[in-house]
C-alpha cells in the first residue's frame, strides 16, 4: 500500500528518497531489525489494540499522518516525500509493531503475506496468533483451489529481505519511523505484485537499501495499472491502516490528504467498517463525489479487485457499496450468496452507495451469463427489496423534518408519488399536493394529504412575490402562471388551493375558480415547466391516509410487528381470547372459506352434543325402566299433573314421570318413537366408531329435518333438562343445542358469537396467529405520539399447551415475542385433569406447574408476563357453591376472616364491600404474583377477563400494549416522570 501511494504522489520525490538509502549496502547483520521493533513496542502496543478493536483512537497514528509533520520530516530529511506516502507507511509501521509484540516479526509478516498472496487455504488457520491472517484465510478458504499454493518459502525470502532493509536503514541514522515505513513499503511492494516479486526472490538479502527501494518502485511502475488493486489486496491484511487513515480524516485539516487516505482505504477494504469511515468523513452529505472520481480512475486501470487480472475492457461486476469490481471468475467468490444483492461479502449489511441507487435491480449481462434466471431474479429481488438497500428515510427531509420509515413508505406508495426520490430537502404542500425541492419552484404535484414531514414553511420555495399559496410564498414563475391562468393576484393575496385546483382567498368561503381548469393553463405550465396535476390525483382522496389497511413491505413489517404470545392449558380460554381478538380487531374476522369450515365444525359439534344427549337419554330410559319396576303406579294421576312441568325436572319429579310412563306401558318419558330410535342408534354407532367428522358434513342436509323432530321430542327435552348429569356435555353445548334447528340448516352462516362459543376452531392445528392493529381511538385529541402508536402492528400468537415439556423443542421459536399472555381459567380450581404422568391433578395446580415451567424457561428470561385470569363469569357462579379452598394451593383463603388481607392488593377498588368472587380473584392474583416474583424477582401483570365479553378481552390486550409501551419508554427515560404508566399498570392489576 505504501508503494501505491507513493505512486500517487510524484514519483520523482520518491526516487530521491530512495536515493538516500542507496549508499549503504545491506550487510549481514540484518536480523537486527527485531531490536528496533522492540524499541517501538510501547507505541506499537496501542496501535495494535486499536486495530483489533476497530475504532480505538490510536495515538501513534496522528503524528505520523499529520501532513505538517510530513512536511517537517521531508524538510529535515531533505526528501520531497509526498504526504500520501506518509499515510501508508504508518499503517505498515503499525503493522510491524503489532506483530513485533510477538517478537517474531518476520515470521508473522511472512505468514500474513504468504496467505494473502497465495490464497492457500492451509496457511491461514495454522497461524493462530495473527488475526489478520485469519481473515485472509477466509479468502483463501473461499477460493479453495489447491493450485493456489505457492511456496511460502519464497515469500519468506521476500519478507526477510524487507526486514533486513528496515534494519539496515535504521543503522544508517535515519528516523526510525520513516525508515521502517519506507523499508516496509518497499517490501510490501514486492509482495503486492507477487508474480513479479518472484524475480526478486532470487535477489540476495544483502540488497542495497536504495536498490530495494528502487526496485520496489520499479515494480510499482511496472504494475502501474495494478497499483490500486494491490492496495486493495494489502488492505486485507491490515485493518488498522484504515483505522489510522480514519484518524487522519478526523484530526487533520488538510482535506486533500484525508480524502486521499480515505479513498484508498474505502474502496479497497474488505472489512465492514467502511460504513463508519465514509460516514465519519463525509458527514451528513451523502454524495461521495471525491470517491467517485477516484473510482473512475480505477475503472480506467480496470483490473479485477480479487485476481488483479484483466483490463478495463473485461466485463466486471461492481459492488454497490464499495465500488469494487470483480471479473466473472471472481464475482461469485467475492460476493458470496448475495443476500443483499451485488455486494462484496464484507459489504453485506452496509448501506449502498447512493449514486448507484439507480442501478438497483438492474442486472448485468455477466451475472445473467454466470447464473440461471431464477438465481438472478432472486439476487435482483433481494437487491431491490432488502431493508438495507432502501433509501434511508432520514436522508429525505420534507418541510425541514427528516422522515421516519413509515412516512417514507407512505410517500413512495401513494398513488402519485414523487418520482425518483433522492436524498435531499423537499417541501410539500399537503393541501394541494405541490412538491418541490427546498428553495425551488414546485416540481410535481403528488398525492395530497399525506401525513409526512412537518408543516410547510413560508419560505419553502424561497419566493419573494408576497403572494402566498397555502402559506407558502410562491416564486415568480408561479405568479406568472397564476396571472396567465387568469387568477387575480393584485394586492398580495393569500390563496388556499385544494388538490383539485380550486382556489379561494384565505378567510373567504367561496371558491373563486380552478387554476388548472383551462386548457391554456396547462400549456402555460408546460412552458414554464411547472407541474400540473395528473388525473389520478383527483381520485386518491381519503384512502391514502388509511395507514391501518395498507400493507407494508416485508422489511418494514418485520420491524414494526410486535408479537404477543398467548398460552395456557387447554380449557383456559386462550382460544376464546384469540377469536375475540380476531372479531375485535379485524375488519373481516373470518373469511367465507373459514366460515364455511367453521359451519361444518359447529354442525359436527352439534351432532356430537346430540349424540351425548341421546346417549344420556338411553341411560335415563334404562334407569327409569328400572325405577318403574320398583315403584307402583298408584301415583299416576299425580304424575300427569306434573307432566307439564318437565322443565323443572329433578330427582323428585323423576319418579312421577316414571309413573306417567308406566301408564303408557313400556314407555317412559325418555322413550322415543322407532324412527327416531333408529336415527339415534345410528348416530351413536357413528360416534363410537369415531368417524363423526367424516360422515356429518355430507349428511347434514339429509338429517336436518330429523334433528328438528328429535329436538322437539319430549324425551330429548327431558334429557336436556337433566344435562347437568351428563358430564360429557360441555357447558357451551346448551348455547348450540338451543339453536340446533337453525344451526343444522344447510344455509346456516355462523355468526361471530356462534364462532366465539364454538369449540375446536383454533385448537385444531395447534398454532394460530393473527396480525392486528388497535383501532385508532375515536377521541379527538390525538396527538402525534398516539398516532404513531396506532401504526404499531401486533401479532397475537396462540399456541396449544400440548407438548410443553421440560425440553420443549419449539418454545425457542418464540424468543422474539414481546410479552407472554398466560391464561388461567379461574373456574378450574375444582376441576381435575390427567397430567403427564397419568395421575389426576387439580387443574389449577397443573396451570401453576405450567406457569412455573414457562416463566423459568431461559427463552423468556427477561420477558414481561401478563397473567390473564379468565372465565370470571363462571367463577362468580361457582365460588358461591364451591369453596375456593377445594384447591390445596388456595387452602388459606378465608375471605370473611381476612378481608383486610385482600384490601392491600386492591387499593384502587371502589367497591367498599367487594364480593366474594372479587376477593377470591385478588387472592388468586396475589398468589400468582408472589409465585412469579419468587421465581424471577420481577413484576407480574394481572388482568381479569371474561373471555366471552369483547370489552374485557379488548381491555386485557390494550393493557398488554400499555405494558410494552411502558417498557419502551422506561428504557428511554429511566426517570420517574413517566411513572404514570406504572400507576396505571397497577390499577389494572388491582
Amino acid at each position, binding site marked *: 500500500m505504501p508503494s501505491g501511494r507513493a505512486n500517487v504522489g510524484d514519483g520523482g520525490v520518491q526516487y530521491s528518497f530512495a536515493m538516500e538509502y542507496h549508499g549503504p549496502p545491506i550487510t549481514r547483520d540484518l536480523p537486527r531489525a527485531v531490536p528496533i521493533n522492540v524499541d517501538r513496542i510501547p507505541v506499537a502496543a496501542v496501535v495494535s489494540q486499536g486495530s483489533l478493536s476497530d475504532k480505538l483512537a490510536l495515538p501513534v497514528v496522528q503524528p505520523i499522518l499529520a501532513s505538517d509533520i510530513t512536511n517537517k520530516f521531508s524538510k529535515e530529511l531533505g526528501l520531497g516525500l509526498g504526504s500520501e506516502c506518509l499515510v501508508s507507511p504508518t499503517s505498515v509501521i503499525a503493522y510491524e509493531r503489532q506483530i513485533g509484540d510477538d517478537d517474531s516479526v518476520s515470521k508473522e509478516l511472512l505468514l500474513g503475506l504468504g496467505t494473502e498472496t497465495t490464497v492457500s487455504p492451509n496457511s491461514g488457520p495454522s497461524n493462530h496468533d495473527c488475526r489478520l491472517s485469519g481473515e485472509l484465510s477466509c479468502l483463501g478458504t473461499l477460493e479453495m483451489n489447491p493450485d493456489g499454493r505457492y511456496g511460502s518459502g519464497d515469500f519468506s525470502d521476500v519478507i526477510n529481505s524487507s526486514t533486513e532493509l528496515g534494519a539496515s536503514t535504521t543503522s544508517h541514522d535515519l528516523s526510525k519511523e520513516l525508515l521502517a515505513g519506507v523499508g516496509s513499503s518497499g517490501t510490501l511492494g514486492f509482495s503486492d505484485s507477487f508474480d513479479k516479486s518472484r524475480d526478486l526472490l532470487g535477489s540476495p538479502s544483502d540488497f542495497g537499501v536504495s536498490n530495494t527501494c528502487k526496485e520496489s518502485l520499479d515494480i510499482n511502475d511496472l504494475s502501474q495499472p495494478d497499483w490500486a488493486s494491490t492496495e486493495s489486496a494489502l488492505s486485507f491484511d491490515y485493518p488498522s491502516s484504515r483505522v489510522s487513515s480514519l484518524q487522519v480524516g478526523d484530526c487533520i485539516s488538510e482535506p486533500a490528504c484525508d480524502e486521499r487516505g480515505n479513498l484508498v482505504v474505502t474502496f479497497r477494504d474488505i472489512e465492514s467498517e467502511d460504513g463508519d469511515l465514509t460516514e465519519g468523513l463525509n458527514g451528513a452529505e451523502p454524495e461521495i463525489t471525491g470517491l467517485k472520481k477516484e473510482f473512475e480512475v480505477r475503472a480506467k486501470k480496470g483490473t479485477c479487485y480479487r485476481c488483479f487480472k484483466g483490463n478495463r475492457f473485461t466485463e466486471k461486476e461492481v459492488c454497490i457499496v464499495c465500488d469494487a469490481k470483480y471479473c466473472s471468475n471472481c464475482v461469485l467468490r467475492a460476493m458470496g450468496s448475495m443476500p443483499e444483492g451485488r455486494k462484496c461479502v464484507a459489504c453485506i449489511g452496509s448501506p449502498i452507495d447512493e449514486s448507484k441507487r439507480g442501478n438497483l435491480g438492474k442486472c448485468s449481462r455477466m451475472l445473467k451469463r454466470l447464473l440461471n434466471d431464477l438465481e438472478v431474479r432472486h439476487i435482483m429481488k433481494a437487491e431491490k427489496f432488502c431493508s438495507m438497500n432502501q433509501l434511508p428515510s432520514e436522508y429525505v427531509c420534507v418541510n425541514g423534518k427528516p422522515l421516519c420509515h413509515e412516512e417514507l413508505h407512505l410517500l413512495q406508495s401513494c398513488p402519485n408519488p414523487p418520482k425518483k426520490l433522492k436524498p435531499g430537502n423537499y417541501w410539500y404542500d399537503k393541501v394541494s399536493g405541490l412538491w418541490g425541492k427546498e428553495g425551488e419552484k414546485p416540481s410535481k404535484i403528488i398525492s395530497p394529504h399525506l401525513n409526512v414531514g412537518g408543516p410547510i414553511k413560508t419560505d419553502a420555495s424561497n419566493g419573494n412575490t408576497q403572494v402566498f399559496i397555502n402559506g407558502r410564498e410562491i416564486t415568480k414563475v408561479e405568479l406568472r402562471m397564476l396571472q396567465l391562468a387568469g387568477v387575480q393576484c393584485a394586492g398580495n393575496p393569500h390563496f388556499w388551493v385544494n388538490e383539485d385546483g380550486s382556489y379561494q382567498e384565505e378567510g373567504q368561503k367561496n371558491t373563486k375558480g380552478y387554476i388548472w381548469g383551462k386548457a391554456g393553463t396547462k400549456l402555460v405550465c408546460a412552458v414554464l415547466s411547472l407541474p400540473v396535476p395528473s388525473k389520478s390525483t383527483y381520485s386518491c382522496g381519503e384512502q391514502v391516509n388509511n395507514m391501518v389497511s395498507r400493507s407494508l413491505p416485508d422489511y418494514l413489517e*418485520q420491524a414494526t410487528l410486535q408479537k404477543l404470545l398467548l398460552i395456557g392449558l387447554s380449557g383456559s380460554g386462550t382460544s376464546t381470547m384469540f377469536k375475540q381478538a380476531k372479531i375485535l380487531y379485524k375488519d373481516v374476522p373470518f373469511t367465507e372459506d373459514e366460515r364455511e369450515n367453521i359451519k361444518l365444525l359447529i354442525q359436527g359439534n352439534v351432532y356430537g352434543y346430540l349424540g351425548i344427549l341421546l346417549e344420556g337419554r338411553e341411560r335415563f330410559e334404562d334407569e327409569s325402566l328400572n325405577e318403574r319396576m320398583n315403584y307402583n303406579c298408584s301415583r299416576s294421576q299425580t304424575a300427569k299433573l306434573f307432566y307439564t312441568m318437565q322443565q323443572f325436572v329433578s330427582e323428585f319429579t323423576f319418579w312421577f314421570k316414571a309413573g306417567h310412563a308406566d301408564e303408557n306401558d313400556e314407555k317412559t318419558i325418555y322413550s322415543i318413537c322407532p324412527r327416531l330410535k333408529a336415527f339415534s342408534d345410528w348416530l351413536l354407532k357413528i360416534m363410537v366408531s369415531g368417524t363423526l367428522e367424516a360422515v356429518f358434513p355430507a349428511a347434514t342436509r339429509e338429517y336436518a329435518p330429523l334433528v328438528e323432530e328429535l329436538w322437539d321430542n319430549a324425551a330429548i327435552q327431558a334429557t336436556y333438562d337433566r344435562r347437568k348429569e351428563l358430564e360429557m356435555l360441555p357447558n357451551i353445548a346448551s348455547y348450540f343445542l338451543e339453536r340446533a334447528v337453525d344451526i343444522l340448516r344447510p344455509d346456516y352462516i355462523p355468526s361471530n358469537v356462534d364462532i366465539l362459543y364454538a369449540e375446536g376452531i383454533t385448537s385444531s*392445528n395447534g*398454532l394460530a396467529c393473527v396480525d392486528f392493529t388497535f383501532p385508532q381511538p375515536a377521541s379527538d385529541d390525538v396527538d402525534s405520539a398516539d398516532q404513531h402508536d396506532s401504526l404499531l402492528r401486533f401479532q397475537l400468537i396462540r399456541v396449544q399447551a400440548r407438548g410443553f415439556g421440560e425440553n420443549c423443542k419449539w418454545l425457542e421459536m418464540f424468543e422474539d415475542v414481546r410479552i407472554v399472555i398466560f391464561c388461567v381459567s379461574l373456574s378450574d380450581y375444582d376441576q381435575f385433569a390427567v397430567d403427564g404422568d397419568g*395421575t389426576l391433578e387439580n387443574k389449577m395446580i397443573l396451570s401453576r406447574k405450567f406457569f412455573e415451567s414457562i416463566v423459568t424457561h431461559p427463552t423468556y428470561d427477561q420477558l414481561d408476563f401478563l397473567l390473564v385470569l379468565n372465565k370470571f363469569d363462571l367463577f362468580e357462579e361457582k365460588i358461591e357453591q364451591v369453596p375456593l379452598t377445594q384447591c390445596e394451593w388456595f387452602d388459606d383463603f378465608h375471605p370473611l376472616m381476612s378481608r383486610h388481607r385482600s384490601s392491600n392488593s386492591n387499593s384502587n377498588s371502589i367497591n367498599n364491600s367487594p364480593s366474594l368472587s372479587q376477593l377470591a380473584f385478588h387472592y388468586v392474583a396475589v398468589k400468582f404474583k408472589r409465585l412469579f416474583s419468587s421465581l424471577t424477582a420481577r413484576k407480574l401483570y394481572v388482568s381479569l377477563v371474561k373471555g366471552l365479553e369483547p370489552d374485557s378481552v379488548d381491555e386485557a390486550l390494550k393493557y398488554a400494549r400499555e405494558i410494552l409501551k411502558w417498557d419502551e419508554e422506561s428504557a428511554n427515560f429511566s426517570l420517574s416522570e413517566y411513572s404514570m404508566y406504572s400507576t396505571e399498570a397497577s390499577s389494572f392489576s388491582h
Partner: protein
Amino acid sequence: MSVAELKERHMAATETVNALRERLKQKRLLLLDTDGSISSSFFAFSGFSLKLDLSWELRSMNLAVATYARSQGKTPLTFGPTDLVCCRNLQGHTGKVYSLDWTAEKNRIVSASQDGRLIVWNALTSQKTHAIKLPCAWVMTCAFSPSGLSVACGGLDSVCSIFNLNSPTDKDGNSPVARMLSGHKGYVSSCQYVPDEDTHLITSSGDQTCVLWDITTGLRTSVFGGEFQSGHTADVLSVSINGSNSRMFVSGSGDTTARLWDTRVASRAVRTFHGHEGDVNSVKFFPDGNRFGTGSNDGTCRLFDIRTGHQLQVYQQHHGDNDAPHVTSIAFSISGRLLFAGYSNGDCYVWDTLLAKMVLDLGSLHNSHGGRISCLGLSSDGSALCTGSWDTTLKIWAFGGYRRVI
C-alpha cells in the same frame, strides 16, 4: 359405575403400568449389563472393509466397537484444521435456520428458517433459486423430493406442505402450496421422502406418531404409534428411512427411545432402542442400513444395531460441568467412518465412528458458525457437508486439498 369409581380404577391401572414399566427398565438394564452374546455384528465400513465380530469378545456394550477396533490395531483418523474447510457461506435467511436437505443430484439444498421462508440454494454458486414464503412461519423441517422437483416442509401448524418448484409463482412471487398433508394433531417435527418415491413421505410429529403419506391423494397411508400405545410415548422428533430397504425407518423421540418401524406393520414398532438419557433429537441410518446413529439431549451420540437391537457405541465428549451441550443433528459420511454431530453450543464434532474419537471440531475453526448448529446434512455423493445454524447462515464444508472423501 360412578365417575369416582372410574377414576379410582384408572389411578390403580396407571400405577400398575408405571410399576411394570419400571421393572421392565430394570430388567433391560440387567440384560444389557450381562449379555455377552451379541449375536453378530458385521461391522463393515465401506472403504475400510473392516469386519468386526463382537460376539465373543465384548462384555460391556459401551465402547464396544472402539475397544475392538483398537485391539485390532486400527489407527484413528487424523484431521488437521484445514482438512475440512468452509467453502461456501449461504446467506439470505433472516431467521434461525432449522432444517436443511440436499437433493439427490447433489448440488441443491433446501433450508427452512424462522423467517418463514424455504430457500432452495444452488450449492455450487451459493445462490438462491427459490425463496418460498410459508403460510406459517414456524417451520421446523424441510425435505427435497428424490426427483428434486418438489420440497416438503412442516412445522408448528401441524401440516406438512408440499411445494412444487416448477409451478408458476403468483404476483408477489410466492409459490402456491401444491399439497397440504393435514392430519397430525401436533407439530410436524421432521419429514423425509421415501427414497426413489416422489409420492410417499414419512413425517414425525409432536402428537407421538409418525405417518406415511400418499402425496397424490393427500391421505395418510399408515399411522405409526399414537392411540395404540405401542409407539412413542412422547413427541417424535426425528425420522430416518433406511436407504437400502425403504420399508424400514427409525424414529427418535422425546421419550428417550428410538424405535424401528416397518411401514407394512403400522400397529407396533419392530424394535425399541433404549439407552439415551435425554430426548433423541436426531436419528440417521448408517450408510449400510443395518445400523443407525442417534443424537440426544444427554449430549451423546450412539450407534445402534437394528438386527440385534443393541447399542454398539457411545460418542461422548466429557465436559467438566454437568450440562453437556445437546446433540441437535447428526449425519454420517458416505463410508460411515465419520459421524458429524452438531451441538447446541455451536460445536460441530467430527467423530471417528470406529474408534469413538473426536477428530475435529468444526466449531473451533475460525469461520465457524456463531450460533447453535441446528441441522446438518451430507450431499448425496458425500463430498460436502452443509451445516445450518441459528446464526441464520448455512455453511458448506468440503475436504480441503489433498484429503480424499471418506
